[in-house]
């Protein structure tokens, strides 16, 4: 069970490969993963950049709690959350959640739970830069 905050761009495929290679061969039957990527549009406006602020110390703790909750609710073998911070451009991965389990229902359910829980609970805030140079704080998170 691991949480990683990354202040520089990360490669979800490489993180996933590393995560999976650390698992015992033969016990894992299912791996579900999700990658959230920065889009170049939000709420009808063209977005050229984004700054992701967090609360160092609290954010990591919250992500660890989210994983602990998932491990309590589902029979999972391992889970991973990687989340960007800092300055992001369109196309950059923002977040990766991954869950391995023996059977697929637990992996699917827990992976989705990690995303929904971190979006509602973890202290991250997005500030967008629009094409016209204007900056704005994102006020509401997208519904799941």
């Amino acid at each position, binding site marked *: 069970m691991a949480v990683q905050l990354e202040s520089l761009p990360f490669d979800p495929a490489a993180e996933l490969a590393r995560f999976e290679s650390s698992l015992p061969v033969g016990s894992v039957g299912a791996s579900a993963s999700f990658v959230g990527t920065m889009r170049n549009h939000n709420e009808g406006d063209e977005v050229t950049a984004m700054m992701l*602020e967090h609360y160092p110390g609290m954010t990591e703790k919250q992500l660890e709690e989210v994983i602990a909750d998932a491990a309590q609710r589902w029979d999972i073998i391992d889970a991973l959350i990687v989340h960007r911070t800092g300055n992001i451009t369109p196309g950059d991965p923002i977040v990766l959640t991954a869950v391995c389990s023996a059977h697929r229902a637990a992996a699917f359910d827990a992976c989705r739970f990690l995303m929904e829980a971190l979006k509602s609970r973890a202290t*991250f*805030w997005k500030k967008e830069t629009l094409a016209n140079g204007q900056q704005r*704080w994102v006020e509401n998170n997208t519904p799941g």
Partner: protein
Amino acid sequence: MAIKVKFFASLREQISEGLEQVDATGIQTISDVWERATQTQLMPERVLCSVNLEHREPHEAVSDGDEVAFFPPVTGG
């Protein structure tokens, strides 16, 4: 005899004169911390808060040495 105060995101920008720490004397709740740190502004309803990295409600108690943070609704992921 001090309480550490943090503001995040839009709040950090709006409350540019906010104090990074306040004297704990006479402070009982999170709301008290807000009023002293922001110097009289009443704490808006949409503001979320934490004490020592745990989410808390504005009426909850704080103690000397605590770290209190104020922030808008989260928008990560």
